[in-house]
């Protein structure tokens, strides 16, 4: 594997996004609008402070999943992925290239959501800002991999959209975003353990509400890393020569 080809793929993806001005605008504007509506819907600041870490995690997962899922699927449907796979490029080089290309926009989006939540919605936090951002970045990497994974199993955009209620909505309800996982029945508690958002919400809450560090939440980070790696490995790129 050479980083050179992955960088060529990443550069090409970045160029494509930058040329699509409407998409670029929506990458910035849509999360702000959604966070504003969600923020205003909470009557008391105290409740928003408690829910904000979970919301940050959920929004990062949601927006990045959509971004990568649809973009990668478009590569397949317009035939460019097949063309790329006929080239002397390995599966690993393609995946790393896509990750590097998408992560820039995912990181920008994550940063916008974070800064807006803290400085405009005035959510209080205890931990350090850069550690919150790094944790959020890790969530975006998981979302990237989840988006790529799902899009390799979908044949069109409609199918990717239908993966949202299947893959994302259960996570919103079972990850501890709305109520503590411990209050759910045992089966749902077990189910929540195989969902990346559970560890995202747990880790981000500990950093933002309890002032813990990235080192303190290493278990959450490790589980998220395992999720990211396994999603990449399970992604069903058209197989064969790679």
């Amino acid at each position: 594997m050479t980083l050179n080809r992955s960088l060529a793929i990443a550069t090409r993806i970045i160029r494509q996004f930058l040329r699509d001005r409407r998409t670029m605008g929506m990458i910035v504007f849509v999360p702000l609008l959604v966070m504003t509506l969600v923020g205003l819907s909470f009557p008391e600041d105290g409740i928003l402070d408690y829910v904000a870490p979970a919301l940050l995690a959920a929004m990062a997962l949601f927006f990045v999943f959509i971004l990568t899922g649809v973009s990668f699927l478009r590569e397949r449907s317009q035939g460019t992925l097949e063309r790329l796979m006929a080239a002397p490029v390995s599966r690993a080089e393609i995946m790393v290239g896509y990750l590097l290309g998408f992560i820039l926009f995912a990181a920008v989006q994550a940063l916008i959501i974070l800064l807006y939540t803290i400085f405009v919605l005035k959510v209080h936090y205890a931990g350090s800002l850069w550690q919150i951002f790094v944790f959020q970045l890790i969530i975006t990497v998981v979302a990237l991999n989840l988006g790529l994974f799902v899009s390799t199993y979908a044949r069109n955009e409609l199918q990717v959209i239908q993966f949202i209620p299947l893959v994302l909505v259960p996570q919103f309800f079972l990850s501890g975003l709305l109520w503590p996982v411990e209050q759910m029945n045992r089966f749902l508690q077990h189910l929540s353990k195989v969902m990346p958002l559970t560890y995202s919400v747990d880790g981000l809450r500990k950093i933002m509400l309890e002032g813990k560090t990235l080192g303190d939440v290493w278990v959450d980070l490790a589980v998220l890393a395992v999720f990211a790696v396994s999603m990449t490995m399970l992604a069903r790129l058209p197989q064969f020569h790679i």
Partner: protein
Amino acid sequence: MAGEAQAAVEATRIGFSYGKTVALDGLSLSVPRGASFGLVGPNGAGKSTIIRIIVGLLKPQHGGIQVLGNPYPHSMARDMGYMPQLSALYAELSVWENVDFFAHVYGLTERRRRVLLVGECIRLVGLWERRNDPVLKLSGGMRQRVSLACAIAHQPRLLVLDEPTVGLDPELRVAFWRHFRELTAGGVTLVISSHTMDDAAHCDRLAFLRDGKVVAEGSPAELVGATGSPGATLEETFLYFLRREAGASDVK
């Protein structure tokens, strides 16, 4: 090089099915080096499947294939160029950026050389004036030309083209065949799939395909000669072999 004397592509009794649908049924063919080789047949004959096997996108379920003297296409991917049926380009990017990207992933990592070859290629397909235009602003024929440039910029020894002239106007079709002849004159081997006899007439050798099998293989003149009617058109020749194959199947 030991492999130079061998055929560019040697397929032996290849079988491939998509689920229960048989696409290739013991297909064998031999593509000589430096020739233009046409895979001709109706839709569903197995042309795209054998093309995808040659470029390494599909793995034969039965039989074997040698590409440029190697048992499996992957190791030879750098020496191959592939133009898929869809133009398969990045619409937001310019003509230059598309050709440059594929040249890069095909191993032209040295920037100066890449710039030279990409420029040469874009001139060759007659799009120099439009090199900075995004592909989405180009007509269908122009996109086909960009797609061809993407397949040849890295100077492959084997060029595999899946229905490259579909949707082209007659003038552009002539221009494409002029490029193809220039390429074979330079020693490049061409494998071209087509369902039109117009394309078939330009090829050095042909394989007529039907139901995943080669029903006849030879130069256009040899194939016409084999019908026993020297004045037969290629279309009539194709139909002759199809009927003969159908008759043989009935006898069996």
